């Protein structure tokens, strides 16, 4: 077993495990993104969304930060205004999808794949089971995990990351990749702030700005319906922007500092 999996290779004996370069070896320069296949699939998913003028939003957070509760409240408030649909990434149970369907909104539960994140292929598969005709906003609730989901483009237009006040206010400093990826950060469960003495919203915002993030920080409580108007306003704005883009034949990826990408040493790769 250990011969095939390589776990017996240590830094100390590593040089013995690999063959020296022989004659006949040739070097190939590649400079390709490691996740290029996922990115291609994500771009394909995005064309499906754009063809139907759908705004797709990827929700990410730690387990239990309130993603499904936010969707439930959003459905109750907006279901007469917009047609909504949900892809659920809770890989272990049907619970979250059932909660969404109970409110009369179509939900598809992704049940295959590795348990720590969704990828673009899983989302494409899910699209075959969801009726997207007439849908205005598609939400993808990613797996509760502050690390892995940030690495995989799903074809969404925007990323929303939740930070609940029952977590540490220094979470953005501890998970910079995740919080940098957000187009909006939601500070959830703020109804609990009065009973928590160790969460300082100003400190959470400070940690976020230290990541050079200028995105909106929206404090809200889905359970007690506090601060929800700003979230709905953001959604309406994003949907209008998506429709305008579709009119122009344009699309958008989660922003992640597009200027930075342009200045990037490997721009265009």
């Amino acid at each position, binding site marked *: 077993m250990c011969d*095939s*999996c*390589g*776990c017996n*290779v240590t830094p100390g004996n590593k040089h013995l*495990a*690999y*063959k020296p*370069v*022989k004659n*006949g*070896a*040739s*070097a*190939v*320069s*590649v*400079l*390709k*993104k*490691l*996740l*290029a*296949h*996922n990115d291609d699939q994500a771009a394909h998913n995005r064309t499906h969304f754009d063809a139907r003028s759908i705004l797709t939003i990827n929700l990410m957070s730690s387990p239990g930060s309130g993603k499904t509760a936010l969707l439930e409240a959003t459905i109750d408030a907006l279901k007469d205004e917009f047609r909504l649909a949900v892809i659920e990434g809770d890989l272990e149970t049907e619970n979250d999808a059932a909660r969404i369907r109970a409110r009369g909104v179509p939900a598809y539960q992704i049940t295959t794949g*590795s348990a*720590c*994140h969704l*990828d673009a292929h899983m989302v494409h598969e899910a699209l075959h089971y969801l009726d997207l005709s007439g849908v205005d906003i598609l939400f993808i609730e990613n797996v509760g995990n502050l*690390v*892995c989901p*940030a*690495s*995989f483009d799903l074809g969404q237009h925007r990323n929303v990351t939740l930070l609940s006040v029952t977590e540490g206010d220094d979470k*953005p*400093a*501890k998970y*910079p*990749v*995740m919080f*940098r990826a957000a187009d909006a950060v939601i500070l959830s469960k703020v109804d609990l702030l009065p009973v928590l003495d160790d969460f300082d919203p100003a400190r959470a915002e400070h*940690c976020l*700005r*230290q*990541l*050079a*993030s*200028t995105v909106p920080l929206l404090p809200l409580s889905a359970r007690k319906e506090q601060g929800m108007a700003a979230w709905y306003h953001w959604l309406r704005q994003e949907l209008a922007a998506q429709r305008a883009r579709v009119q122009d034949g344009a699309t958008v990826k989660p922003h992640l*500092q597009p*200027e*930075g990408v342009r*200045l*990037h*040493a*490997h721009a265009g*790769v």
Partner: protein
Amino acid sequence: MHELSVCQALVTQVIEIAQENSAREVLMITLHIGPLSGVEPALLVSAFPLAAAGTLAASAQLVIESQPLRVHCQTCGADTEATANRLLCGICGDYHTQLISGDELLLANLELMT
């Protein structure tokens, strides 16, 4: 961890390129990985043999060149070093900066036995 998924994607790409070049074996794989790539190099290295087993890359050496974290300041124009959770301008301290290096997750080059 998602490093196994990343490794599987890596191996798929490497094998495609190896086959395009009619290689008999992949000897060395060099990656460029930045601190903000979302991937932990040590986990990638330990997942690699699992993903590469039984392929042309099974005994390839995986070399990871980590990349510096640098930001460009929109306020004063300076390019400075930064750290993963403090991406501020090193000169004026402003947070209106853009990452110019440090989020790479790239397959840089391969050494093939042809």
